[in-house]
């Protein structure tokens, strides 16, 4: 190998930084979606690198369902403070109170309610672009999505009418009221994310590592027992050594039994995993097109 060689992580990093700088240059009011989850932790590090020695030239935005793991929100707030970044949090609860988001009768999950809450935040701050941490390897509707994903005035994604993306030329043009979602991690896999976390020595919320938790078996997965996931008659609660692979709402995120205590352990586990990351997310299992339908409505 010559010294003019980029390994796969360096290549993915250079691509993601190029995409982020393109956002900073082409949009007037961008925001970076930061939840405190592992993908957005990488995103934040990439943003630091893309713009340093300047500070990240856009606010961080998080849509809080009110069903987040408390560990995640604590981590989110602390990281934003450390980076001296402006953090905007908009709550689904407030959107419900204002009537912007309406809960379907009998529905407990607030996953769908993130959509109107996010769209209202975009309107409130007149964001023209939101950078998100979605990856194409997560889900097959995402496998078809562009780096620069155009959304119309209603926040909708039209998968049949996407802009071709050729070479490293991104078409960032939008009309007033329209919006762009940009995904710098499009080409990253779950493994790449963990390898990057190791390489950059990034801190991640503790729930990614193995811990003891009371869980209940439901629809083939271990759900964490808490106020929002009460035990139903006939269900057995078990105390297990688990961790989470992907973090969604506390009511739909399945835990996996795992002894992984370090990033190295997680990488070793990911290397031999036989189930995809989103296999533990009930929100994706609703139907074969669950993700596509949410994205069409304006989801991240």
């Amino acid at each position, binding site marked *: *190998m010559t010294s*003019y*060689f*980029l*390994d*796969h992580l*360096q*290549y*993915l*990093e*250079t*691509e993601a*930084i*190029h995409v982020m*700088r393109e956002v*900073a*240059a082409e949009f007037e009011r961008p925001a970076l979606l930061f939840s405190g989850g592992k993908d957005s932790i990488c995103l934040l590090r990439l943003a630091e*690198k*893309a*713009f*340093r*020695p*300047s*500070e990240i030239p856009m606010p961080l935005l998080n849509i809080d369902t009110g069903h987040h793991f408390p560990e995640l929100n604590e981590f989110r707030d602390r990281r934003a403070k450390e980076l001296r970044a402006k953090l905007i949090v908009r709550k689904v609860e407030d959107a419900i109170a204002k009537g912007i988001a309406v809960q379907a009768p009998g529905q407990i999950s607030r996953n769908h309610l993130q959509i109107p809450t996010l769209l209202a935040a975009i309107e409130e701050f007149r964001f023209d672009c939101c950078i998100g941490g979605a990856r194409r*390897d997560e889900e*097959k509707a*995402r*496998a*078809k999505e562009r780096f620069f994903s*155009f959304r119309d005035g209603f926040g909708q994604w039209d*998968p*049949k009418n996407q*802009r*071709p*993306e*050729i*070479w*490293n*030329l991104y*078409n960032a*043009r939008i009309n007033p009221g329209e919006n762009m979602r940009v995904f710098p991690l*499009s*080409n990253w*896999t779950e*493994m*790449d994310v963990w390898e990057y976390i190791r390489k950059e020595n990034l801190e991640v919320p503790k729930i990614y590592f193995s811990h003891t938790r009371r869980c209940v078996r439901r629809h083939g997965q271990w759900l964490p027992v808490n106020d929002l996931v009460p035990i139903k008659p006939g269900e057995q609660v078990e105390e297990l050594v688990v961790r989470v692979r992907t973090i969604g709402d506390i009511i739909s995120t399945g835990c996996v039994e795992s002894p992984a205590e370090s990033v*190295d352990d997680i*990488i*070793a*586990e990911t*290397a*031999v*995993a*036989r*189930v*995809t990351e989103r*296999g533990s997310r009930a929100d994706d299992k609703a139907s*074969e097109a669950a993700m*596509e*339908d949410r994205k069409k409505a304006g989801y991240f």
Partner: protein
Amino acid sequence: MSIPLHHPVDLLRFNTCGSVDDGKSTLIGRLLYDSKSLMDDQVEALERSADLTGGGQINLANLTDGLRAEREQGITIDVAYRYFATPRRKFIIADTPGHVQYTRNMVTGASSANLSVVLVDARLGIIEQSRRHSCIASLLRIPHLVVAINKMDLVGYSEERFMEIRDQFEEFLPRLTLRDVKCIPVSALDGDNVVDPSTKMPWYSGPTLLSHLEDVHIGSDWNLRAFRLPVQWVNRPNNPSDPALHDFRGLSGQIAGGIVRVGQEVMVLPSGFSSVVKEILTPEGSVTEAFAPQSVTVVLEHDIDVSRGDMLVDPEMLPGSSTELHAKICWLHPRPLQRGKKYLLKHTTQTVQAAVTTIEHRINISNLRPESGVEELAMNDIGEVRLTTSSPIVYDGYAANRLTGSFILIEPGTNATVGAGMLPHPTEVARPEYKDFSI
């Protein structure tokens, strides 16, 4: 469980061209399955949809057909990206649909590829479609091509048939500008020569598809000769807490070609101002040299006027610069290319106005021959045109540099990406606006 911690793994991007009939989905499925890159829940989901809609037959195309409309209609609409890894390399597959809108999709999927896999049905040999796919790969200057001669099981694993098809392809080869072509006999259905060597074709001593993908040398696919840095973003810290940063002014961008070193003289185009590189910041910190395709921030010795859309270049190897361009254009939109209509042209980091003045001819993508007397370019057409731009474009020939030799056309109003263009080697080098200016 022990895994090697720090051995270098690089990334190969490739696209697959062919239709479902050629066994493309089966080949990708086989590649993923045999390299253990398919997960249990993905296989489970395939089985679930097979029971519901497929009469019990597992359809590997469902792996890549991610959209509802695709599954409903049984067609692939858009390029899908898939990822897998072996201990040697990581791979990104752009799975480009074969029948519908093949040019548009293949251009999208192949523009950043190191390698294209063209699938050929061993029973049919080199047909119109194989020629088209190879011609597009050639026009896009994809450095490596694999002709995967599939369904060898249906021709009795015949060496004679394989040689016959290879000869057919080689006959056609002189018309193309392909540097590296490899023919591999495979049977995707049974997995012969995909990941594991075939026991049924002992006459074939070459690599399997996967071992070729693992070994093909891609280190020289980037242009490391002529330094080019399109300025993407000017980095000026706002109210920095560190007083040393008050006067910091960095030029950020992705190096599109060559190598840059601290102390090196660089020229800014189109203005022609020169300066010397004072500092180079990469994702890994401050360095003395950086190279394509790294994303960097360069600090110059002198405070000269530079902004987004300008290009830093090696003054010893100047690019071309002109408002009059000659280009090959691939049309991507249902509304045909109109002569005289104003489009936006995005080239590296600058966007200018542009109009096509002449459509010289359309290229027949089955044989690369020009067809004259063409009034417009419709979707999926590739043609040669002349354009005028509102300000000069600083460029290289696409054959020398894919990043500084390409552009897209955007339709104002709808903001649709309507065309993809490739520029020829410039006939004269840039003449700076302020030629005699130096600090």
